């Protein structure tokens, strides 16, 4: 353990020292310095393996706690590692099922389809039909992917988490940790990793997602083959399609990218505002457009959950953005845990108003990322703590906007959200409790109108 601590410290310091020339030994602007340190940190994380790659990914979705340079650098983090030999993967399958892959599947491809820090993916075909939790039966011969946790990944990650937590405890209270609570971050990270190491959780979320979108033929998630799934092996339907980086080919094949962009953005809002559970790791590799003109969501490793109350308050914040109402945004952000001290209310309100007025792109469409990330930055400038769920959601919405714009650059995500949020708020007006609360004020207003 002590030697691993040494390796971690040496690797991080080594990479940071290597960045000294790029940071001009501290004699350049703060932005260049921060970018150089962030690069060093990202390289050291890539070198240190799965736990640090995952930690980097967590940092990349937290612009509320980390500098823009560090978030941008961590977004570049490559979760593509050299594959482990197929024999090691076969050993995991053997230990989970006490059978060779060929006994479990009609075919099993020894060549990996993808290799990431936690799991490796191989193609296979079904030997028996499978009735999924939701959707059509997968027939014999159906193509599937088998996701297998890399041998030793759990042990190495959990070992590193213990070390990183100790480092975080030492870091807490120092100048380095003034913008965030390192121990809370590591604990959140530890929870995320625990969930990712048990692949059944991912499978269950995929099932739930398929059920939530059962009435929407344009959205799909892979069907899970539960008889061939355990905590360390997840077998799911193989979905063919194009990644967002291959959109030109998709367009040539007749895919309606504009329609899918609008639909995809609406589908995400439905996850957040209606169901309160959403795919929180929507980078371009996790979304496909398929030849049948559908959007396929993959990899439900990182997901976000909202309580009904949070959902309603977030809808109100979104409505505030749509209708440019800074007071509404502040009122409902407060209910979400963003406490603005009295002395900062006016400047924050003014800054928020400016953000709302300045979120129009040259083509006339609204820019959610400008508003959302600008708001987080504004709060950071006044030292106002941002609840982790709030930051994660804003980042996710900004990512959805980016993804939608990759499909269709002229999309206006704010305009897309308008009917959605308006309908939800209209539905909330029908809540009997709310009606009882508001009726006296409404009657008073009506009487005032009548007597004037």
């Amino acid at each position: 353990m002590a030697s691993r601590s040494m390796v971690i410290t040496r690797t991080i310091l080594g990479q940071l020292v290597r960045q000294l020339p790029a940071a001009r030994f501290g004699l350049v602007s703060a932005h260049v310095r921060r970018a150089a340190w962030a690069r060093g940190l990202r390289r050291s994380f890539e070198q240190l393996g799965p736990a640090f790659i995952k930690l980097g990914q967590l940092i990349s979705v937290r612009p509320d706690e980390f500098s823009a340079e560090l978030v941008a650098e961590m977004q570049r983090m490559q979760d593509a590692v050299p594959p482990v030999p197929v024999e090691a993967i076969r050993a995991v399958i053997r230990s989970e099922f006490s059978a060779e892959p060929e006994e479990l599947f009609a075919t099993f491809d020894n060549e990996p389809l993808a290799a990431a820090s936690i799991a490796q993916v191989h193609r296979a075909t079904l030997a028996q039909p499978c009735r999924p939790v939701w959707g059509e039966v997968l027939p014999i011969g159906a193509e599937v992917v088998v996701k297998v946790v890399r041998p030793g990944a759990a042990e190495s990650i959990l070992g590193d988490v213990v070390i990183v937590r100790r480092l975080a405890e030492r870091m807490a209270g120092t100048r380095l940790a003034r913008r965030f609570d390192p121990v809370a971050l590591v604990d959140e990270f530890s929870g995320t990793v625990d969930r990712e190491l048990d692949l059944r959780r991912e499978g269950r979320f995929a099932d739930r997602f398929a059920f939530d979108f059962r009435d929407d033929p344009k959205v799909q998630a892979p069907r899970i083959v539960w008889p061939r799934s355990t905590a360390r092996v997840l077998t799911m339907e193989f979905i063919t399609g194009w990644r967002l980086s291959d959109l030109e080919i998709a367009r040539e094949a007749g895919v309606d990218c504009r329609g899918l962009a609008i639909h995809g953005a609406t589908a995400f809002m439905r996850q957040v505002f209606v169901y309160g559970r959403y795919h929180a790791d929507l980078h371009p590799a996790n979304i496909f457009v398929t030849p049948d003109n559908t959007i396929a969501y993959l990899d439900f490793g990182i997901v976000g959950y909202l309580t009904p109350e949070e959902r309603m308050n977030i809808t109100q914040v979104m409505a505030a953005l749509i209708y440019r109402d800074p007071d509404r945004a502040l009122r409902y952000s407060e209910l979400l845990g963003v406490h603005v001290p009295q002395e900062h209310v006016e400047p924050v309100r003014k800054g928020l108003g400016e953000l709302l007025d300045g979120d129009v792109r040259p083509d006339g469409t609204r820019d959610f990322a400008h508003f959302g990330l600008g708001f987080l930055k504004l709060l950071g400038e006044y030292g106002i703590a941002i609840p982790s769920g709030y930051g994660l959601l804003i980042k996710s919405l900004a990512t959805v906007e980016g993804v939608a714009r990759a499909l269709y650059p002229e999309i206006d995500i704010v305009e897309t959200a308008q009917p959605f949020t308006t309908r939800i708020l209209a539905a909330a007006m029908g809540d009997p409790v709310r009606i009882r609360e508001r009726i006296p004020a409404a009657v008073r207003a009506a009487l005032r109108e009548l007597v004037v």
Partner: protein
Amino acid sequence: MTDDVMRFFATWLFTHEAADEEMKAAIRRGISGGPEGMSGGPDAFVDGLAAMVEEEKEKLKRDLEARARGEERAIEEPPDPALDEIRFEVAELRGRLDSMESILETILRKVSG
């Protein structure tokens, strides 16, 4: 719930269609409210809502006309969400049982092997 509320407003709007000029103005503003028109704070929200209620009212009108002509009921009955939820929970349970069954088979193979 949303549909109930929208239906309620639509019915109200339908009966007040001729009377309320203020409401009509709000609908006009709401319909024309692209990104430019959505800058009026809380009032803009009311306009946006009014435009959506207007849409619902038009739908209601078409439904009533269809019924008056004796056509098949145009309003689609959505599936009962509570029943769907139960179906999902049962299916999810089946998935868990499938997974457990494969674990049991593994244990059996290990014991007998």
